[in-house]
């Protein structure tokens, strides 16, 4: 097994049934195998292709108007008093409240 699909799914909080797991695992392995040919290419002498920007050209710290609360919440499935509402206990984690 070159990929632990169950673990990967858990990291994205996706629950897979045993049937799904059985179906997806070979599919994902095929994808990874196809892509893995790239790993064999010798890139030792190749410079990474990355755009560069000079520090002084970065964005100056000026704030501008944001969207309105109404606009922000327009696509939220659930909302309450201006907040986005998310149901379910999120994997038992306790954040500061």
């Amino acid at each position: 097994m070159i990929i632990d699909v169950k673990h990967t799914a858990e990291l994205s909080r996706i629950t897979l049934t045993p049937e799904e797991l059985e179906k997806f695992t070979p599919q994902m392995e095929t994808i990874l195998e196809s892509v893995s040919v790239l790993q064999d290419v010798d890139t030792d002498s190749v410079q990474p292709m990355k755009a560069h920007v000079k520090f002084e050209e970065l964005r100056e710290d000026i704030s501008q108007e944001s969207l309105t609360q109404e606009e922000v919440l327009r696509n939220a499935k659930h909302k309450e008093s201006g907040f986005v509402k998310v149901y379910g206990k999120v994997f038992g984690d306790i954040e500061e409240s």
Partner: protein
Amino acid sequence: MEYDTIIGLEIHVQTKTKSKMFCTCPTGYFQKEPNSHVCPVCMALPGALPVPNKRAIELCMLMGLATNCTIANEIFFDRKHYFYPDLPKGYQISQYKNPICSNGSVILPNGFEVKIERIHQEEDVAKSTHHTSTSESDYSLIDYNKSGVPLIEIVTKPCIRNAKDAKDFATQIRQIARYLNISDADMEKGQMRCEPNISIQEKGRWEEKDGMILPLGDYKLNPKVEVKNIGSITAVEKAIEFEVARLTKDLEEGKPLIQQTRGWNANKNVTEFQRSKETADDYRYMPEPDIPVIEVSNEDIERVKSELVELPHEKIARYMNDWDISQYAAEVISASRKDASYFENLQKLLSEKLEPKVAAQEAANWLMGTVFALEGDKEIDMNDLSLLIMKFKEGKITKGKAEEMLKDCISNNKDISDELDMFEKESSQNAGNIQDIVKEVLDNNPKAVTDYKGGKEATMGFLVGQVMQKTKGASNPNDVKNILIELLK
């Protein structure tokens, strides 16, 4: 069995910028309407492009320069993936292998050197408020105003050995952040967050090498615990002490230890299990393709360096060496940049008339003994204060009277120089009839006079006190004493 405590600290500090890390939304979210400082970038709408904030990166560099770090000439950002409602993109833009600042150090007041592994730039997440109940309708309310606020993370090497040093380090970082105006670093407001990593290891069975804890021989290292949700500097110390005791007890009872994240419960003064810790692999770091590599020249770094000011530990050393100020006073005075600059300016002002060392000590005495206790939100005018101190030094006013005057002027909004003028006028009037007052006191206290003449010199203090009372403190006790001695001959 004897154990060593091994502590590393991760400190997050929100830096003080006007706009967010990767977009132009305003940062001041405190007590603002929820979801009113949000745009397509910090809400992670498809196609939105993050654009780094120059000032935020400067503040990260400044923290690095103040803690003796090396500043990178190329800045890279990475994506750290985890899935949680407070993180709309599904990843946080952070830095993985190449932080902006690395290999720094801070010297604590007790001389211990805390080594800093790195300081990197990232973005804050949204604020979620959890509403849990026994029913199945648990939910969270999310406010994205905080999402994308610039955040720096300071990571020490696992070189700290006790809770007190961890607390002192956090205190020093907070002080530096405030001195350099990098952040208000208010832990209660979440502007600064401390997360200690703690483990205990058998004495003599491990070594520290290049900032890593390695086992010796066939020893198996005990896993570490990370504590989150610490809301104050004192809680840093308390949480570590609790955790060390808990780990020691578990080990001695033969319970298996697991790597985990725990949360500090400030009401119960305990840590509570949150989750078993994710590993770096689980975060699936990858280079952030939307942000180019940022080239930083040495001139850029020099420019940021020019923002450095003399830091508290440097001030303390200077006050002690140059002016013989006690360590305690030096620490109290330099605790905030405002107090330190008040002290230094007062010293300068007093130096016009006094020796620099005397001026400094006088300034320190007055600040520690009187001004800090009196000062509310209103600052005492320095010229007035120096005038008062000089009158005291010249023996024209007693310290008690001067303090009383200062207090009166602050609480009743009076002008010190006016009050001093009035007081001096009264004093000079009194000086004329002080002879009369002294005579009156002598007449009223025949027993004291006899006692004094009979050799009971302590009676002098009583007589001086009587005169001072009658003149309402508006006379110099030494002058009074001289007159008394003269008249009692």
